[in-house]
């Protein structure tokens, strides 16, 4: 398990959604809901700290697996993520994905923070970042309009696979 206190935010995405915190919480934790805005990926979260977290591909294979660090409905969900089934990507250290849900004006502010325990190169962060931009845009559309956008998973952007290969060879996270 990573030392949570040592993590640094790599990617932060903030969006304001016309919804209630409870609706956002349900969207983030219910597999039927996540499938609609998260590239068809069902999320499976055990409803307690220490429980397991899984994000599955539409065909049921595991995309990311981890543990629930914080389960505080409807305000904060924090889980560790380890990538699976993507070759060298699987050897990257786990990161932490936290959703903070706060009432703000007439809306809800949703902040997604992806934190890392090592000095992760921007070329690797870029892959997750472009995914989050699409996922969070889609989450907002779904909650506000009942419809999602037609966004597909673009896969790793150019340069990401090379950056992962280099990082896995050098393992900079071990040098602390």
């Amino acid at each position, binding site marked *: 398990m990573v030392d949570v206190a040592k993590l640094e935010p790599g990617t932060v995405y903030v969006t*304001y959604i*016309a919804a209630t915190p409870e609706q956002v919480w349900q969207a983030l934790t219910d597999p039927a809901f996540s499938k609609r805005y998260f590239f068809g990926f069902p999320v499976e979260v055990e409803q307690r700290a220490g429980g397991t977290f899984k994000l599955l591909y539409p065909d049921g294979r595991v995309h990311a697996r981890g543990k629930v660090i914080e389960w505080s409905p409807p305000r904060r969900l924090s889980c560790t993520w380890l990538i699976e089934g993507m070759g060298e990507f699987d050897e990257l250290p786990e990161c932490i994905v936290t959703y903070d849900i706060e009432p703000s*004006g007439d809306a809800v502010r949703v902040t997604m923070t992806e934190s890392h325990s090592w000095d992760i190169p921007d070329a690797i962060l870029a892959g997750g970042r472009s995914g989050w*931009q699409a996922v969070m*845009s889609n989450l907002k559309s779904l909650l*506000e*309009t009942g419809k999602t*956008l037609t966004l597909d998973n673009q896969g790793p952007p150019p340069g990401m696979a090379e950056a992962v290969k280099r990082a896995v060879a050098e393992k900079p996270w071990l040098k602390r």
Partner: protein
Amino acid sequence: MSKPSFVYVTYIRTTQEKLWAALTDKSTMKKYWFGAFAETDWKPGSPWALKFDDGRVADSGKILEADPPNRLVIRWQNEWKPEIKAEGWSCCTMTLEPHQGVIKLTVQHELEGEGTKFIEAVSGGWPKILSNLKSLLETGAVAYETKV
């Protein structure tokens, strides 16, 4: 070292033309920009200012590039708070692209000099403004209302 900057990407169910209109039309801007609107003719080289109805000026600058409905570049300086203005000029680039049947809007705001206050301010502001813009185009109403 890269310059201090903030980047925000949002995907919006609309057309590039409607998004361009929303980014440049005064009365539409007021709805999602907390009452503020741009005063400019949107021609390269022309002055640009972000104002409120009561005459207060939030930001000023000039249009560097305007390529409707694809790209808008504004040289931008804060006029609201002296400590933010003191950090000097920034450059704001808005890019509109079709993407998988919707429109991808990228707003990149880069400070020309050094400092943290300007980028901190726009990092708080853009997510609110662009969330509102997306809501307005997709639902006809904004998500977040506040008076400045």
